[in-house]
């Protein structure tokens, strides 16, 4: 599904190398997690994959189903099936959540040559999906993320993911700012979307999210590289002993 090879990235404005050669391959249907200390490059990786400006790729490649991601505009990556759930979802006053969702869904359908959903079809689909994430009609009507609580914002991200039905979902610290109940709700939303054809990359600081979204493979990232990979037990090791041991071991 996603194949990253020797990816090197620096900040556009500064002479600062963030990613120093990341190798990562995710098969269809798999859930990978990336853990790592602050500043290790986890969020940068998610931004570079989804096409945020301000970064310069200085080496390596990243492909989604064989298609070169780094050559595409952000909207093209989305249409190709990539989705990033933001750590800090953006507030957009004056644009209704529904309008936003429908614009996004239809934009992607158009690029893929599928017919646009009518207002009625769209409404039906969004209501069903919103209900399971406990997003009420009022929240759908409000401007995008404006006045939403932390939990509401993250649930709204998962709703977008459910509506857009991407192939490759990247969750950037989706657990940050969530209480236990909200985290469970979000995790249930994500688990409901797990399928053979869909892969996940879950970026997190804490093992607790991985109790709810069970990963197949866990990677530890440090100083711009993936330094260790393993099974779910690796996350437990981090939880119990911190990163210091692992980093000392690979150093």
């Amino acid at each position: 599904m996603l194949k990253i090879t020797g990816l090197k990235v620096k900040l556009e404005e500064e002479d600062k190398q963030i990613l120093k050669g990341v190798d990562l391959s995710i098969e269809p249907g798999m859930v990978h997690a990336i853990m790592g200390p602050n500043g290790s490059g986890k969020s940068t990786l998610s931004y570079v994959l989804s096409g945020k400006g301000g970064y310069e790729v200085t080496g390596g490649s990243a492909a989604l189903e064989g298609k070169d991601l780094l050559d595409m505009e952000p909207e093209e990556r989305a249409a190709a099936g990539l989705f990033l759930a933001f750590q800090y979802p953006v507030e957009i006053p004056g644009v209704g959540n529904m309008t936003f969702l429908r614009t996004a869904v239809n934009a992607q359908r158009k690029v893929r040559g599928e017919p646009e959903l009518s207002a009625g079809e769209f409404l039906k689909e969004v209501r069903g999906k919103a209900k399971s994430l406990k997003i009420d009609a009022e929240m759908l009507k409000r401007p995008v993320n404006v006045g939403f609580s932390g939990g509401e914002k993250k649930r709204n991200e998962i709703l977008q993911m459910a509506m857009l039905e991407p192939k490759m979902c990247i969750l950037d610290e989706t657990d940050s700012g969530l209480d236990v109940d909200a985290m469970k709700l979000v995790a249930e939303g994500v688990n409901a979307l797990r399928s053979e054809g869909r892969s996940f990359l879950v970026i997190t600081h804490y093992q607790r999210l991985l109790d709810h979204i069970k990963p197949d493979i866990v990677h530890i990232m440090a100083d711009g590289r993936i330094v260790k990979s393993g099974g779910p037990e690796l996350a437990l090791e981090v939880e119990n002993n911190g990163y210091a041991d692992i980093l000392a071991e690979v150093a």
Partner: protein
Amino acid sequence: MALATQKLDATKARLADIALPEGSGWGTAARADALARVRRMGLPTKRDEYWKYTDPTTLTVADAPQAALHYNDEGPLFNAVDRVKIVFVDGVFDANASDELTAEGVEIERLADAMATDIHWAKELYGVLEARGQKPVARPLAALNTALATDGIVVRVTGKATKPINLIYLHEDEASDVILHNLVKVEAGAEVTLLETGPAAARFSKLVEVEVAEGGKFNHIRAQGRDHERRAITHCFARIAANSTYKSFTLTFNGVLTRNECVLEIVGDDAVAHVAGACVGDGRDFHHDDTVFVTHDALNGESRQVFKKVLRNGATGVFQGKILVKEGAQKTDGYQISQSLLLDEDSQFLAKPELEIYADDVACSHGSTSGAIDETALFYLRSRGVSLHDARKLLTLSFLAEALDEIEDHNLTEELRDRLEGWLSRHS
């Protein structure tokens, strides 16, 4: 001193051959008074403090610069609204294109007819609020309008008007130089909505004086043309009595030069005055100026000024807004916000927000910002598959939304929003 003398001499020369419109009945005296005001104040020049950001030259010269006509396939605005249509073509009343000047709750006449009637309510209003509004800041172009207006509409609102009145200003002559003056008198407890649409002329001076009596409601929606080269100076003067409401929204598409002055005076307790505007401008020759002056002279008044401008390709936006709270106008709640979205580095926004407060128990706030489209929001939308073009459009509409929200009637909001969307699709 030399400058002041120079200015008055220039005004004298410019007005030497001016003849007041004939057959104005009681209006003749009001016009002569107004012309005397202009001569005393002098026509504005770019050296005047109040015209620091907007060059008035093309508004004051004897010959109006031409404005090419631009046709487009957009239908007329508010076509689906049940309204009284009153059409002026280059300032000339078109009886055939207009509806009967009657509707429930209102009395509508042409200014020319009102002036020909010896005893008429309009006599107590024509030029009166304009003259009041000359202090503390001189507005000579308003006085010039009172002196020279060739026609207009006078409306007395006696009850709850069942239909809005729509003044439609068509522009068919590339060289038309038009001066119109309207009056609206909203009697106690009465309500009316005034719609004004169209580019009007190559050069357009338009003034409306609005008297809102106790418990009255005046709603004003203007949409000023699009894609044309016209120049316009407009004035609204309003006196707002106790428990009454004045709400106005103006949308401006392009136009080489537009200056909208709005002078509101709250004279009765518990009154509300909202004035809002949105403009979208493209090109180095686009210049749009909102100049607002709100006076609180009563208890517990509420005023809002909300202005948003989208500027691209070297366009210029100006906002001069003032809230004056007079002594004793306690519990005043005044709010003012002016913001611009600059779509490139060539465009500019010049803002001069002012508060002058002589009461000690009031809440007044103002803010002014200029910014570009938020890159993070842009990326957020694009990461969901929305194209760069559509994402920019959505965020621009998002920026304008706060001003559009000031419109009471949501059907009108939708129509104006659609027009804005159309404009944004063409200009990007």
